[in-house]
Each structure stands twice: as structure tokens, then as C-alpha cells.
């Protein structure tokens, strides 16, 4: 096991990793930008090093500064968290070259699965269902038209190097295909430095279901069941829950086994999440793989009792994954609300400013993952998520009731937060009856 690691991230995930380190007897070194100087969670780290000004490019995304900090702090490994450099294969390579363990997959695995076209190919090889689509990159407008007509409209054009909901366009006919195809290529070039796009059948009104997987360096892999992340706004998840409330055990088994097959085909090690779309006939189709720990990982931790960050550290340090599939059970229902510093009344505009009041809820079945506290300041430099509110109860109805109770107790001000929006969603008939899809927020919330 490592004795000292550096966390190349900030905020709530940095704190989460510090906690896992301390439970394993690992010293945790945190890095911070000038915007995060004085943030209370840094005091929980064994050492904290300022690496740059507020701008992510000069701090949390800055590989030389992070590696420098790792060297002067003499750490054995770096945990990248999520976002920032977590899926940057070049960073993982540099860590390897500097003899620093990267808590995540190898750069090769990351590259392979990070290329959406390649990932789709691997899925097909592993006999994982994919939506009808192009065989790899679509290189010309003429090809685009051919593919679109073959698989049938509506189609979606996606950037091969994209992900996280970016670089996607839905097209309904030949006329819009021409302009969308070219626009998609320019956008992909600008955003991801790679103009390659591919085309898939667009699944109308899908649910979003993802499977958590852990794998060690000897090829032993297990799934930890699924999370349903259908409540999204502009491809950003707002509420996640486990188990998926609309699939039967047979579909669940098939879904989870597919995810495992895919990652075994890719020879993957460490934590990953395989994302699927579920159509209204409860058929699932592979979407993409996230080769990192995810924001919503605590949802799985609550229903399975497995500490995912702990296992990431164990696997990265060379330990075998001693958990057996037959030992993994899901119990009860867990739900997470992402509390963002955004104003639902003003189109979810981000709100920065001092946090004069911050009183987190508690009580049975409530878990709060946050770096925020009364007296802190929300700065405009980073993403707006300030807390994750989770509940774990025996049934979905009780989980909803406890979540509403906890949201009502959660006092944050004067900045605006998404708490009122969450309360609205949890009281909505369609959400309660599980009749939602990824377009639910756009259609039903003002």
C-alpha cells in the first residue's frame, strides 16, 4: 500500500480521497490554487502545496506544476479524482515516466476507451449491444448521408474524441444532415483537437443507466450494479439513484454482465463506469465508458457497502481485488442530489459569493459529501457543484421522502442553489411513477 500520495484535484472529491487515504494509513498531499487558499478541507490533508493562480490551466490542469508538487512532496502515487486530468492519457503517461503510480487505468486503456469510435468497436467485439451506427469514423458528407439513410432517422452525430455530453448533434433529415455534419466536424476540431465524428441511431426519450465496475491488474473484474442517471439538464446529471427502478432482474443481470465483458475485452484495470441508454422497450445500448471514478460513486457505495475510492487505491498499489462477484449485493435504494451554486429561477445561472449560512442535514440514512462550510466563498473559477446530498433507505418511496426532508433542512445562503429545483423534481408525478426520460427536465421544469 502507498505511504504517501498526491491528490490532483480540489473540493469535495479531494476531501473524499483524503478521507480514504487516512482510513488506509496513507499520507495525503493536497494541491491548491490561489482561489482555494484557506479552504478548510486543505487542513485535513497532511500537506498542502500551492501550485498556481486561480485559472485551471495554470493550476489543476497544469501537468508540470502538479508533477513538480508530487516530486517535492515525494509521493508514490497521484489520484486524479474526476474531471481535470482524470481522463488525460498524456498525464497518466508522464506519471508513469516519472515513476509515480497513477490511480486509474493505464494510458493505453484510457486512450482506447476514450476514443468513442474505438470503444464502440470493442463493445461490438464483446457482444455488447450498440445502437445501429456507422462502422467507425464518417469521413465525408456523402458517407454521412449514406449511413444516416441506412440506419434511419433520427440520427445523432458525435465527436469521436468527445464525451460528457459535448460535441453531439441530433439530425432528423437529409437537409439538416449536410449542415450539421460540417458544423459538428468544426466544433469537434475546436473543442477536442480532432474533427473525427461518427453517427448513431438517435434513441428517442431514453433513460440513462450506467454500471460501476472494478478490475485489478490480474484481470479479475466485478460489477457493482447500476445507477440510473436519467434526471439531467443539458447532459449534466442532477439526480442519480440505484437500483434502476424500471428494469427487471434478468435485464439487470444482462446489463451488468455486458459492462464486465466490455472491460475485460479492453483489459481494463481500476474503476470505470459503462454508460448505456435504455429505450422505452427496456432494451439497452452501449454509449461510452468513463475511465475514472465518477461524481455519483457514493450512490453505489451506499447500496453495496463497498468503498470505491479505497479499492482504487488498493488496485493502483498492486493489491488484488479480493471482492468476489457473489459477495456483491445491492440493498435498499440510494439517491443523490447534486447541489449546485446555480439559480433555478434564472435559467440555472451560476452564483458565486460568500456562503454566510451553511447548515447540512443529517439523521438516519443521510450522507453529505461536501467541502463547503459556513464562512467559505464560492468562486467563479470552477464548476458549480458545492455538495452531494445522498440518502439510503429500504425503499424508493422512503428514499424520496428522506431526500425531501433533508433538502428542506439544507440551509445555504445567500447564494442561490438548485435545492428548490430538486424539491420540485422529487415531488413530480412523473419522477415518482418512473415515467421519465433524459428530456424530462427540459420539458417539465421552467
Amino acid at each position, binding site marked *: 500500500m502507498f505511504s504517501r500520495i498526491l491528490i490532483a484535484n480540489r473540493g469535495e472529491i479531494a476531501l473524499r480521497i483524503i478521507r480514504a487515504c487516512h482510513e488506509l494509513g496513507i499520507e495525503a498531499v493536497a494541491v491548491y490554487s*490561489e482561489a482555494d487558499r484557506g479552504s478548510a478541507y486543505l487542513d485535513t490533508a497532511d500537506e498542502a*502545496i*500551492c*501550485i*498556481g493562480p486561480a485559472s485551471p490551466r495554470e493550476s489543476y490542469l497544469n501537468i*508540470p506544476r502538479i508533477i*513538480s508538487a508530487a*516530486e517535492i512532496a515525494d509521493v508514490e502515487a497521484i489520484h486524479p479524482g474526476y474531471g481535470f486530468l482524470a481522463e488525460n492519457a498524456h498525464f497518466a503517461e508522464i506519471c508513469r515516466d516519472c515513476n509515480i503510480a497513477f490511480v486509474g487505468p493505464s494510458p493505453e486503456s484510457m486512450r482506447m476507451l476514450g476514443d468513442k469510435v474505438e470503444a464502440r468497436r470493442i463493445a461490438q467485439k464483446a457482444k455488447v449491444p450498440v445502437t445501429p451506427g456507422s462502422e467507425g469514423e464518417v469521413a465525408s458528407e456523402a458517407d454521412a448521408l449514406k449511413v444516416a439513410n441506412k440506419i434511419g432517422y433520427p440520427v445523432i452525430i458525435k465527436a469521436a474524441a468527445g464525451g460528457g455530453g459535448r460535441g453531439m448533434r441530433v439530425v432528423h433529415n437529409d437537409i439538416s444532415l449536410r449542415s450539421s455534419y460540417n458544423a459538428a466536424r468544426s466544433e469537434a476540431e475546436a473543442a477536442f483537437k480532432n474533427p473525427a465524428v461518427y453517427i448513431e441511431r438517435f434513441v428517442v426519450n431514453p433513460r440513462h443507466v450506467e454500471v460501476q465496475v472494478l478490475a485489478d491488474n490480474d484481470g479479475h473484474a466485478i460489477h457493482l450494479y447500476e445507477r440510473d442517471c436519467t434526471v439531467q439538464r443539458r447532459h449534466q446529471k442532477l439526480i442519480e439513484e440505484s437500483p434502476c427502478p424500471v428494469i427487471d432482474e434478468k435485464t439487470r443481470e444482462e446489463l451488468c454482465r455486458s459492462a464486465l465483458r466490455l472491460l475485460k475485452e479492453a483489459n481494463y484495470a481500476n474503476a470505470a463506469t459503462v454508460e448505456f441508454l435504455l429505450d422505452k422497450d427496456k432494451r439497452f445500448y452501449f454509449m461510452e465508458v468513463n475511465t475514472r471514478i465518477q461524481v455519483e460513486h457514493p450512490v453505489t457505495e451506499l447500496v453495496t457497502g463497498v468503498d470505491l475510492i479505497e479499492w482504487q487505491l488498493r488496485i493502483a498499489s498492486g493489491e488484488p481485488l479480493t471482492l468476489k462477484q457473489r459477495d456483491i449485493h445491492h440493498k435498499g435504494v440510494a439517491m443523490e442530489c447534486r447541489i449546485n451554486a446555480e439559480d433555478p429561477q434564472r435559467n440555472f445561472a451560476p452564483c458565486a459569493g460568500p456562503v454566510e449560512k451553511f447548515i447540512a442535514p443529517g439523521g438516519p440514512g443521510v450522507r453529505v459529501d461536501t467541502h463547503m462550510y459556513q464562512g467559505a466563498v464560492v468562486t467563479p473559477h470552477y464548476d458549480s457543484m458545492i455538495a452531494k446530498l445522498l440518502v439510503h433507505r429500504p425503499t424508493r418511496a422512503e428514499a424520496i421522502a428522506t431526500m425531501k426532508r433533508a433538502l428542506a433542512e439544507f440551509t445555504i445562503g445567500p447564494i442561490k442553489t438548485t435545492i428548490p429545483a430538486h424539491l420540485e423534481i422529487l415531488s413530480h408525478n412523473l419522477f415518482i411513477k418512473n415515467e421519465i426520460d433524459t428530456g424530462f427536465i427540459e420539458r417539465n421544469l421552467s
Partner: protein
Amino acid sequence: MSDKQVQKLDEIKELVELMIAKDLIEVEIVDGDNKIHLKRPQVQHAVFQGMVPGAMPVHPEIPAMASPATTPAAGTAEEAGLIDVKSPIVGTFYSAPSPDSEPYVQVGADVSPDSVVCIIEAMKVMNEIKAECAGTVVKVLATNGKAVEYGQVLFKVRPHG
């Protein structure tokens, strides 16, 4: 208290004073069946380990961040008006170009914006740090061979004029 007890107390007081005078942390005296054990709270001392740079390639110069000193807690009238020369990167501070050389600057040295004031090693690259201000060095705050973080004050400079 009996006379005997008063005498014992005086002895203990003397022992404590002796401990403080000689900076002893712990004392135990056993006299037959009598035992006395005195322990003082310890003061932690940080231990620094210097690192000596080997011959490494020199990187083009990087400007330091020079700004007016923002430490009002420093107190004295002398501190006001001094410029903080801050580290622009994370790394290891070296005051001289090599272990055998003289330091780039010492207290009293004159610097101009392009003067190299130190080297900060980051990822095996030796970065020459420039003063970015004009004046006289009044304080050297970084220690040779020790790690510095972004924004850490390396020198204090009194501006000319």
C-alpha cells in the same frame, strides 16, 4: 503541610528549576521506595534536509512575481514599502548556480528586473528566476535546497528611489 512535606516540595521545585535551566525534558529519580518522575511538555523542531543539485541543464529565465509586501502582521515600519519577490512555480529553491558557487544574491545586493536571483528546480529543469523589480535585497526568506510553492515569498526588496 508538615515540615517534611514542605522540604519535599522545595526539593521538587529545585528539581524543576534545574530541568528548565538545563533544558531537560524528563527526569526520574529513584531513592529506595521513593520515586519521583517529572516530565515537561516538548517543543517540536522541524528538521530540514538540504538537497545538493548535481550538474543539470539550465532553463531559460522565468520572471518572479514581484509585488508590494502584503504582510501587515510583519509589523515594523521597515516592512512597509518592501517588494515581495515570489516564486512563479512549484519546485526546489537553490540560491546559487552550483553547490560550489556564490549565491546569486545576498542581503544588500542590488537587483534590476532582469537580474537572476535564484534557481528553482522543477521536474529536473533548473529555472533561472528573475527579480522583475529594481532595488536592494533586504531579506532572503527561502532556504537553499528546500521546496517552495507557487506564490511563496523568496526575497524582500527595498525599491530604489
